[in-house]
């Protein structure tokens, strides 16, 4: 079944269609959130929350964007909420919804070969990191990112440019 047919069926509360839609979108939502949060448990919790929200709001999905883009918007808002919540709980933390390198649980992110990449991503501020991830890994257009992030296209461009400069300087430091 095609995505639009699956969405129609899911709106009519067809469990198989809903299961298929969620199953197909799971990797993109989880993948986005793991790069954004750099923590497996937080990524999993936010993925679950994203789908729960989607489950409750699927009736209002207007199919103007792709289903996965809609899910990414929900995930982004949940990540922002999570950051706000954690900064209220731990106001001293500079980058709270991202696990610090000294976290007790050494996640797959540190164990695997892409630990260096995750370390560089960790050094980017949250809002800028999300923009970089959406563009660099998911190839969303500036316009789509500005809708997802709810900010002007100019802000998207400057955030992305800042990220690139920061990454280049981090790579330069590592190369020395």
């Amino acid at each position, binding site marked *: 079944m095609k995505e639009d047919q699956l969405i129609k069926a899911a709106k009519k509360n067809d469990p198989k269609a809903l299961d298929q839609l969620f199953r197909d979108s799971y990797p993109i939502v989880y993948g986005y959130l793991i790069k954004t949060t750099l923590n497996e448990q937080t990524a999993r919790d936010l993925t679950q929350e994203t789908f729960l929200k989607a489950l409750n709001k699927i009736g209002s999905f207007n199919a103007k964007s792709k289903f996965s883009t809609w899910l990414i918007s929900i995930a982004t808002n949940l990540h922002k909420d999570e950051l706000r919540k954690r900064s209220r709980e731990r106001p001293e933390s500079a980058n709270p919804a991202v696990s610090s390198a000294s976290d007790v649980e050494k996640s797959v992110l540190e164990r695997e070969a892409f630990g260096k990449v995750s370390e560089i991503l960790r050094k980017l501020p949250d809002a800028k990191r999300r923009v970089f991830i959406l563009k660099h890994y998911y190839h969303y257009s500036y316009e789509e990112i500005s809708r997802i992030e709810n900010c002007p296209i100019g802000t998207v461009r400057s955030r992305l440019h800042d990220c690139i400069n920061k990454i280049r300087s981090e*790579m330069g430091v590592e190369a020395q």
Partner: protein
Amino acid sequence: MNKSCEMYQMELMDVHYGESEMTEELRSHLDGCEDCSRYWAGLGELETSMVFPEFEDPFKEIVLDKLMAERENKSGRKRNALDFAAFILLAGLFLGACLALVFSGHAVALSKIYLSIFMVAPLMLPFLIKRQMTKGAHTNGRA
């Protein structure tokens, strides 16, 4: 006014990420500017240096099961709400019919019906049971 290298670099970023096309102006600036050439090469290097492989969540099935259970609960709650709404509607209709009978002067008849339903019917129950048992015995005897 000449554009700054920063502005050229942002335009190079747009080109790299497919948001715009390479222009003659950009190309000629690149040829003459070492800084922007390095930036342009750096953008290309990001494609290989910032690779972040996708990996499956080992708990994916558990999360999906939980979501499907939540969907079941949700539709269960919806069904209960619909049943309740149907009950309220039927009860309202019944009450309305009773009130209509009362106001059209059939209050006494209505009371009789009520009495027969709520008092006489339970009193009839032992007789009905006895009759049923006797009928059962007859059938068994014949068999």
